[in-house]
């Protein structure tokens, strides 16, 4: 990998990773704020109404700062598509420019307008209108998420396009683009993950307040909201969302699946790896601890199914950096398991009415908040994949040796 490519990737990866921390929380909080506003609107007593409204007000302040930071880090994202990946933008801009522009024109305007109303408008709007504004904010932010997912989904699984005579990629069907099957499951996985992040943050702060003895009333509300939302979200995140995404990767990107699971050789009844270090020189995993047959079941729903290993694919089609992909994926899965366990435990304690008293759970929730964010580092390794996969798309259409993807500032 020449150094210009490495620099481009590093910069883009940094921008994505840093930017994405903020919308992740924004989208999760948008839902939770809407829930709090709904509870306020429907509260039976005046004091309860004010309690939930106060809770919403608190999180709205945090939401506003988070949103702004997301915006200022998101503008570089949009421009770095063409500063860093100029050849790709020139070729594919006619397609992926559409969802990106759609996001800007149709959903970003919506969410930023209603953000103003939600943050500053409580006194000037009726409770019902303020509640509606929080609904519009939630809808706008989740719609934004959809268009961004559509963009990435097209890069993972291109649909609805053709190659024009001048080499540029042209859109042929916006319906196919927007209803890309990859996009639907990726969106579901992504948004539920945002709810997980939001829930953990809310629960952690609630735990902090309960433990420190300040704002205990609000602390208990945050804790309950966070744990209930977080448990439901964690379960849905894995089943069906994560499972379906895994199956799509199996169907459309088998080389990626093999790399991320550390499967170097095709095997029937493939095991799932719990621990292991991939060694791309000598090939087998070092120090593996595996559970037999589970990978076959997860990907093909049969214990004895054959799962393709990396040996089935030409070396050129292998992901560029297998250890990075493998470790990102395994860490994500590991963190997901931990997060699920913590939430499940908290939910059980909550159901038994003992959550507030337990001193062990709340600190764990606070630490876990950091890790929930780290679980999101999976996507950046896919960015390394994009060049491979879209290059493969071009390679298969143009023939090997086509120097399409040599990105650099001046298209060197």
């Amino acid at each position: 990998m020449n150094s210009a490519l490495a620099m481009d990737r590093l910069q883009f990866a940094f921008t994505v990773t840093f930017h994405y921390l903020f919308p992740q929380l924004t989208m999760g909080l948008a839902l939770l704020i809407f829930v709090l506003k709904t509870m306020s609107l429907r509260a039976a007593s005046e004091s309860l109404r004010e309690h939930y409204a106060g809770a919403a007000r608190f999180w709205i302040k945090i939401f506003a700062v988070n949103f702004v930071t997301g915006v200022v880090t998101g503008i570089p994202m949009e421009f770095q598509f063409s500063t860093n990946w100029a050849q790709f933008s020139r070729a594919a801009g006619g397609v992926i420019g559409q969802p990106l522009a759609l996001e800007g024109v149709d959903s970003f305007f919506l969410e930023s307008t209603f953000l103003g109303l939600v943050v500053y408008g409580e006194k000037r709007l009726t409770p019902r209108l303020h509640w509606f504004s929080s609904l519009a904010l939630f809808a706008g932010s989740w719609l934004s998420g959809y268009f961004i997912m559509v963009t990435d989904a097209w890069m993972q699984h291109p649909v609805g396009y053709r190659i024009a005579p001048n080499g540029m990629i042209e859109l042929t069907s916006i319906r196919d683009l927007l209803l890309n099957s990859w996009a639907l499951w990726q969106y579901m996985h992504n948004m539920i993950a945002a709810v997980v992040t939001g829930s953990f943050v809310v629960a952690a702060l609630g735990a902090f307040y309960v433990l420190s003895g300040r704002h205990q009333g609000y602390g208990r509300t945050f804790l309950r909201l966070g744990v209930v939302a977080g448990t439901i979200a964690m379960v849905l995140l894995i089943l069906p969302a994560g499972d379906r995404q895994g199956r799509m990767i199996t169907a459309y990107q088998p080389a990626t699946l093999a790399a991320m699971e550390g499967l170097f050789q095709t095997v029937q009844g493939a095991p799932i790896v719990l621990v292991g270090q991939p060694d791309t020189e000598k090939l087998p995993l070092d120090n593996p601890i595996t559970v037999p047959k589970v990978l076959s079941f997860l990907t093909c729903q049969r214990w004895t199914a054959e799962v393709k290993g990396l040996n089935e694919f030409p070396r050129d089609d292998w992901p560029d950096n297998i250890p990075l992909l493998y470790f990102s994926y395994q860490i994500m899965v590991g963190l997901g398991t931990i997060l699920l366990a913590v939430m499940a435990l908290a939910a059980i304690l909550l159901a038994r009415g003992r959550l507030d008293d337990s001193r062990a759970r709340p600190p764990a929730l606070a630490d876990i908040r950091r890790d929930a964010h780290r679980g999101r580092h999976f996507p950046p390794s896919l960015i390394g994949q994009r060049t491979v996969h879209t290059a493969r798309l071009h390679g298969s259409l143009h023939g090997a040796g086509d120097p399409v993807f040599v990105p650099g500032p001046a298209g060197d």
Partner: protein
Amino acid sequence: METLWFCLVAIMIAGYVVLDGFDIGRVLCIFSSRARTLKNVPCSLPSDPSDGNEVWLLAGGGTLYFAFPALYASSFSGFYLPIMIVLWLLIVRGISIEFRGHIASPVWTPIWDAGFAGGSLLLAIFYGAALGNVVRGVPLDASGYFFLPLWTDFRASSSAGILDWYTILTGVAALLALTMHGALWIAMKTPAPMSGLSALLAFLSSCAYLVGMLTSAAFGVYPLLLPASTDPALSLTVANAAAGSYGLHIGLAWFIPGMLLSAAYATFTYRRFFAD
């Protein structure tokens, strides 16, 4: 169809300049001590939707991306360093507004005010310099890309960089126009001494001025998008940089309703917040 999108993109960029322009401009008035006594000058008014203006930048950039991908790719990769500088200035401005109000301290607030003011000043100059470069043309090669150093010796010769005395001058012109625009916005918002109607007319004239200057610059280069200083045949034009015909047609299906809706809720918000 390409011409239609050219007009739409030009309007979005002009819209962004008019809206963010008064935001950039009014803060420069912070340097005047009399202006500082006016309540509209401090950076972050509680009822100030300045983030809403950046939406136009994002939407305009996205629209440019899908309608003229070759232009987007060539110009942004060629202007890499100025783009990075502009992005940093936008970031500094954005966070300055947001963070400014969070701690009440005589050290905290002025730092963010300075960040906002300095960022706005440089941003105005860079925007103007960008326009100067686009109008003058850049050394596009046969593959449609170009490279220019950020500056060479500041002389407007054939080996000029992106910044030379000419483009800096266009930058200063932009700075002056936006400062005037910002000052007129403050005058419009302040009850005294200008009467309401004349202040409003002055501000609207400034809007018209900015829109007029920008659109005439755009139509001055039309049908070229990015003239080539090397060989005119290598210029990026409305025809050779546009996306496919299906894409441009279907774009109208979401662009027009989207913009109408955005105008609708922007008006609704404005009425609710600024009617007083």
